[in-house]
């Protein structure tokens, strides 16, 4: 948005040169930085995927597709499938739990809303490892939950709540639930509740009114929330390690291990690319869906 040239008394050429200078001054450093510290690293991952593993980490020639074929090994496909399943379950649960919460907050009197929202977000701003650690304490077979269970006399043996897939899902849900509630709330908060009243006044049942009016309008928020929960869940390696007891391996663990344990960088690069590809597909899907939702309304 350059200011219209010629409106000032200065010469056109000088103005243009200065504009170019400022343009470089403002855009240059940031774009250079993003290129150097994001684009090049990502491009390196891409190129490493085609190279051969170095004995002690790193890579060497020749170019090969071996890492790609290795990723098709059933063991790794299963890890990928598990990760997708765990991330999807987490996302669906977050939506089911987050929706009524966001809805309730949006319908609160405005003086309560801020407090209710801050209470949702507050745990999210504390250290991620500490929040995960809290579940190790809570779910431990010697921990408070099991102690309470034994005290009620319902069980006479502690039950294994920790170190299984369920614990991993609970941990991810705990970590990322606020990321579902916030965008849902944002889309519900903007809603014109008189629309809903109109629908019920016109004789629609409340459930019908919800699914015909409220839900479609909140769909963009739900999509964004789903992405916010799914993306970090899929790549997470801390929760599976700490709450899964090393027995539940997700693609994030596998990638981490290729770089820090197995020192097979090309294979790690392939796995990382696979993960990123899934996420790009997800973004594309979200863009398509939001176009479809927004499209007809724009014409109406």
């Amino acid at each position, binding site marked *: 948005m350059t200011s219209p040239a010629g409106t000032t008394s200065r010469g056109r050429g000088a103005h243009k040169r200065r504009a170019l200078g400022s343009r470089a001054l403002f855009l240059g450093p940031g774009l250079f930085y993003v*290129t*150097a510290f994001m*684009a*090049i690293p*990502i*491009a*390196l991952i*891409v*190129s490493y995927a085609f190279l051969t*593993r170095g*004995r*002690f*980490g*790193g890579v060497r020639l020749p170019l090969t597709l071996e890492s790609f074929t290795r990723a098709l090994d059933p*063991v*790794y496909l*299963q*890890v990928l499938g598990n990760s997708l399943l765990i991330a999807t379950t987490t996302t669906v649960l977050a939506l089911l739990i987050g929706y009524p919460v966001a809805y309730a907050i949006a319908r609160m009197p405005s003086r309560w809303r801020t407090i209710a929202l801050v209470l949702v977000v507050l745990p999210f701003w504390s250290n991620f490892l500490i929040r995960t650690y809290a579940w190790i304490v809570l779910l*431990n*077979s*010697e921990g408070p939950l099991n102690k309470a269970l034994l005290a009620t006399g319902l069980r006479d043996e502690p039950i*294994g709540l920790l*170190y299984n897939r369920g614990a991993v899902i609970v941990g991810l849900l705990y970590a990322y639930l606020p990321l579902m509630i916030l965008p849902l709330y944002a889309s519900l908060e903007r809603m014109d509740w008189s629309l809903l009243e109109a629908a019920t006044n016109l004789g629609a049942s409340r459930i019908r009114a919800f699914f015909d009016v409220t839900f479609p309008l909140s769909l963009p928020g739900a999509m964004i929330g789903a992405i916010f929960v799914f993306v970090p869940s899929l790549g997470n390696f801390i929760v599976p390690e700490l709450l899964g*007891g*090393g*027995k539940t*391996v997700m693609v994030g663990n*596998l990638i981490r*291990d290729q*770089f*820090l*344990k*197995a*020192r*097979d960088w090309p294979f790690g690069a392939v796995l990382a690319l696979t993960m990123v590809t899934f996420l*790009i597909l997800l973004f*594309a899907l979200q863009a398509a869906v939001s176009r479809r939702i927004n499209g007809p309304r724009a014409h109406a």
Partner: protein
Amino acid sequence: MRRSGVAGAIAVSAALLLAACGGSTSSDAGSAAAGSTLDPKADLTKQTLTVSNWAGYYPEDLPAKFQTAVGAPLTIANHATNEEIMGKLTAGGDSGIDVAFVSGQYAQALNDAGLLEPIDPALIPNLKNLYPEATQMPFDKGNKFSVPYTWGTTGICYRSDLVPTEPTSWNDILKPAAENKGKITMLSTERWLLLPALKSLGYSINTTNADELAAAKELTLAQKPDLLAYDDTTFYTRLVSGEATMVEAWDGWCNYGIAEDPNIKFVVPKEGSDLWSDTMVVLKSSKNKEAGMAFINYILDPANHAWVAENILYKVPNQAAMETEAVAGMSAAYPNMGMTPAELLKEEAIVDLGEQSSAYTKIATEVTSG
């Protein structure tokens, strides 16, 4: 998709440029590494030492005492596992670490990668305190690039009051009795993950035979449903809390549990086990090599090494230290402290397997992922 196309084009061209730069720097590093001699008269007070050791694997006041005795300030960084420190040491560039503590087979791999400074016996006169056996460990005969800090074996650490029968065989942990199901943990560092299965099948723990490895993998995989967790770091606390009743453990670490609960016991299964050694190595990238050698020499001092053993409850391969009254008396409370070098040497020493070690890595991934 236009967006990512443009970004991709910029990125790829830049990456090629960078890869070219990268190639040249690494070859420089290789040639520079050739001849370097240590100065026995170096002023150690001018050097600062950064050592990476396992958390809790050294007396807490070691840095202070070392600086008083030798003059070089000492910082100790912690790592949780061999793999973690290996990742940092092999990532390229100067890791900032002068002396690292790693298990013998990892020291061997680091040396093969050309990352270690040869041990200079002239600067470490206390090498004479080592048991003769400890100077002839198969991963480094003659202490050319590593000096042993501790040594021991791997076995089963268990709560004698909570298991139905006391374990004597690797099969007791691989195919646990109903009472122990869900209450056992296994080490997940690749070589030790497969050790129980290899030994129970009667194979060498250094085997590279694909059929033997496949059989061991199958046995380890079959055990997975009975596990509480794979655990390299907290297994003894799980025994103390009663979360676990039986764990695969290094002897010294089992002693941590024994210290808190005398019902905890350690056994080397009848099929045999390994002889491992955790070693000290000086990195070639270090700028404080003389201080690094002085650090190793300081540890090998009989009084100091005995003080280490008392603190960390691991056997040290230092004859003079083990024969001090304090350490010799420890075997009453911690029976495995009394194992002699001859007893240890009956077990099979772990060595690095070079290119073949990736087979273990792959199996470990497959077992934990399966």
